[in-house]
């Protein structure tokens, strides 16, 4: 994924197994008990987790031959850009659509793959979770530019390629929630989390967005605000879009200090 590693080498599955086992942690509905079911499908090259799930959905029979309900999961783009299919795969939070079965088998050295729902969000059913809080956090930090209106007013402000590229990196956040899943400080929505902080940063960096920086920083200074971050840096390691989350946290903290000294807190 990194921009610089160029032609990275990839391990290929040299000796594919005959079958792949998919172990799915299931739940009938919110509040019901979780349980595991194991499915088995013939190995094919070029499978990803989504196509394996599609196979199972078509004919939901467990490895032991028990007819069961089709597993439920979310998917849309299948290109790792909508963020919806995020789940925990072999213990790691990531997108199911970009999880290639070959890679998983190479990494685990087995023929089994485990799928679990994310744990930090309400589990709707099976692998489906409800990430509404993440969108609410965006409202809280006012992650937008205040426009006079959407009518024709000419171009936006000039911007250097450097600033553009820095902002571009933040703008790719797809609200997938990997960072929150991995963050040791985030439980039951007690902390606004790195995703919202990074999105605040995205707009604070924009020449027009800067004008309302105080409003955004204010959204980060409540009990659930930025001070909850323990700097564990787990978030940045799991972010599939390579968003510089710890840098956003650092720079936002700096902005808050500056504002505390000279800004609205003084008023």
């Amino acid at each position, binding site marked *: 994924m990194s921009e610089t590693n160029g*032609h990275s080498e990839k391990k290929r599955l040299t000796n594919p197994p005959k079958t792949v086992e998919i172990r799915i942690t299931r739940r009938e509905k919110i509040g019901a008990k979780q349980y595991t079911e194991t499915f088995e499908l013939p190995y094919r090259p070029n499978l990803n987790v989504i196509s394996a799930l599609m196979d199972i959905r078509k004919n939901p029979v467990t490895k032991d031959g028990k007819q069961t309900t089709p597993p439920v999961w979310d998917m849309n783009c299948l290109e790792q850009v909508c963020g919806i299919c995020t789940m925990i795969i072999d213990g790691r939070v990531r997108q199911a*659509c970009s999880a290639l079965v070959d890679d998983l088998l190479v990494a685990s050295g087995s023929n089994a793959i485990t799928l679990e729902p994310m744990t930090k969000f309400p589990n709707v059913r099976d692998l489906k979770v409800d990430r509404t809080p993440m969108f609410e956090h965006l409202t809280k930090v006012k992650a937008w530019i205040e426009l006079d209106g959407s009518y024709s007013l000419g171009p936006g402000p000039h911007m250097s390629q450097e600033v553009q590229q820095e902002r571009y990196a933040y703008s790719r956040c*797809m609200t997938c929630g990997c960072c929150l899943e991995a963050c040791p400080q985030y439980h039951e929505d007690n902390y606004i989390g790195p995703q919202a902080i990074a999105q605040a940063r995205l707009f604070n960096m924009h020449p027009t967005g800067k004008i309302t920086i105080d409003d955004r920083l204010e959204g980060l200074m409540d009990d659930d605000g930025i001070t909850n971050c323990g700097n564990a840096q787990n978030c940045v390691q799991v972010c599939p879009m390579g968003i510089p989350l710890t840098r956003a946290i650092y720079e936002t903290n700096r902005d808050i200090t500056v504002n505390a000294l000279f800004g609205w807190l003084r008023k």
Partner: protein
Amino acid sequence: MASKGLKIAVVGGGLAGLAATMKIAEAGHDVDLLSIVPVKRSHSVCAQGGINGAVNTKGEGDSPWKHFDDTVYGGDFLVNQPPVKAMCEMAPEIIYLFDRMGVPFSRTKEGLLDFRRFGGTLHHRTAFAGASTGQQLLYALDEQVRKFEAEDKVKKYEGWEMLSLVMDDYQVCRGLVAMNLQTLELKAFQADAVIMATGGPGMIWGKSTNSQVCTGSAISACYQQGAKYANGEFIQVHPTSIPGEDKLRLMSESARGEGGRVWVPKNPGDTRKPQDIPTGERWYFLEEKYPAYGNLVPRDIATREIFQVCLDGMGIGGDNQVYLDLTHIPAETLTRKLGAILEIYEMFVGDDPRYVPMRIFPGVHYSMGGMWVDFEQRTNIPGLFGAGECDYSIHGANRLGANSLVSCVYGGFVAAPSAIDYAKNVERKNTETNGIFDAELRRQQEINDNLIKQTGSENQYKIHEEMGKVMTDNVTVVRYNDRLQATDDKLVELLDRCKHISINDSNLWATQAVPHARQLQNMLQLARVVTLGALNRNESRGAHFKPDFPERDDENFLKTTIAEFSEESPILSYEAVDISLLEPRKRDYSSGKSKAAAVNDKKDAAKIVVQGNEEKPEGVSRESITEKEGENIREGETFNEEKN
């Protein structure tokens, strides 16, 4: 103010739906915004390449008129010209607006917006944000709409699927019925007007470049309730997609825009790795046949050429694959300009396209056809509007790259005031809405109940696969009448088999089986419209190609196909096309650009041809390229060893 606010329902939160929502909220009215997925996860995020607008920052003398000419010409003249002209005139404003909203568009050294070249034009007209333009544009609108949501102007219903319209006794649309996808609860939404912005129907082909919610189901429901569907047979097959098990992933046209070259080994049996095949033994068939446009011929032409080359057994190793090669461009330039899309290839195939030519094949991508709308985005049903990929109005017989995003925003921006205007001025007759909402709710509940009760041996996912296969085989690049007829017969058979589907999910909470079964039947109805529209159009135009009728036939077919629903079979009729601004001329990209319209200046033409070549890396000597290739060959070998 709040007292006399209107309530407008917008179905779909992609670019078009959000554009409309923002405009309505800004005008002070209330919006109920429905979407299957959270709007920020709509299909529009997939758009990679960019958005067109003749801002003319490169001293090329570009203008909205030329953009208009390219669009109409690219669409093979099967398009009402006035709305296209209006869109091209609005396009620069749209780009500037997104710039003001904070979209991180790529910049020039001076700090201005940068533009790239896309297929079907000779100008740098495409603004882009890295290689994830759709994502960035959608997010910008999502942010603005979130602001209005915070002000209670917009109420979002995410995780709700629109099932049907609510019509009054005068066949006027008064709202809709939708289903909560967690509880399967049905709810009626009353509205002064309804705007459909539900995107394209790619899932009809099983695998396509579209996202999973792009079923066209909602528009099919409107069609089955009386909305006209236009030009259904015009389906764009993108020349460059990456074949996959679950979907066809797009390799954006920007790969060609940045200098990507399409080739096959001159000897199809050549077993060497692509990097080892010397230039002289490669066949750059697009460059050879279309010297002016080279690899940047419009999509339908590129698709057909690639398809044909493979049909003739010239594909790589005789397979349905050709090379799309970027390896002559410095890796670091590629990373900067195309990073995101190259990552997609690397992520899903495992090879790094900066060093290994990509393998690609055409894939179903976009529907030019859609719900019929007039120049104000009104459908034939009073109170119902359409915008975005789900309407038919802009792209004619073929869409140019980067023209969809702009048409979606334009459609939303026109539909919003148009719907407001309608809602303000409509005179309601006496009957009002007594009982119509309850009646529609009951009708939809019955459909659900019957589906859940239904038993039989059919598997809905198998039927979907069969539909996808028959449509892909027969209703894509090359079309024959006997096969089209056979396809329709098959679709009728599949519709019948839908009656014997048993829902294989006994747990109805958040089940995906019930919604999918409903979508499947709607997809089949729409598939018939596409197929029969194609069968009846005995000519070749844009994306619609029949070897038995290889020429465009303006006399008989410069007409919009209109389909209206009936139980037995769609009823087709034809409508004249408004060609009041540009005289139709032959569409021919093969010889220079004098015929290719837009630019009249011969000198310009020469410059452009040169420019085509100049897209090979500047300042990189042949040696340094070879060096890189050498490096790459070594790694390439390791790859293959490990693979076997």
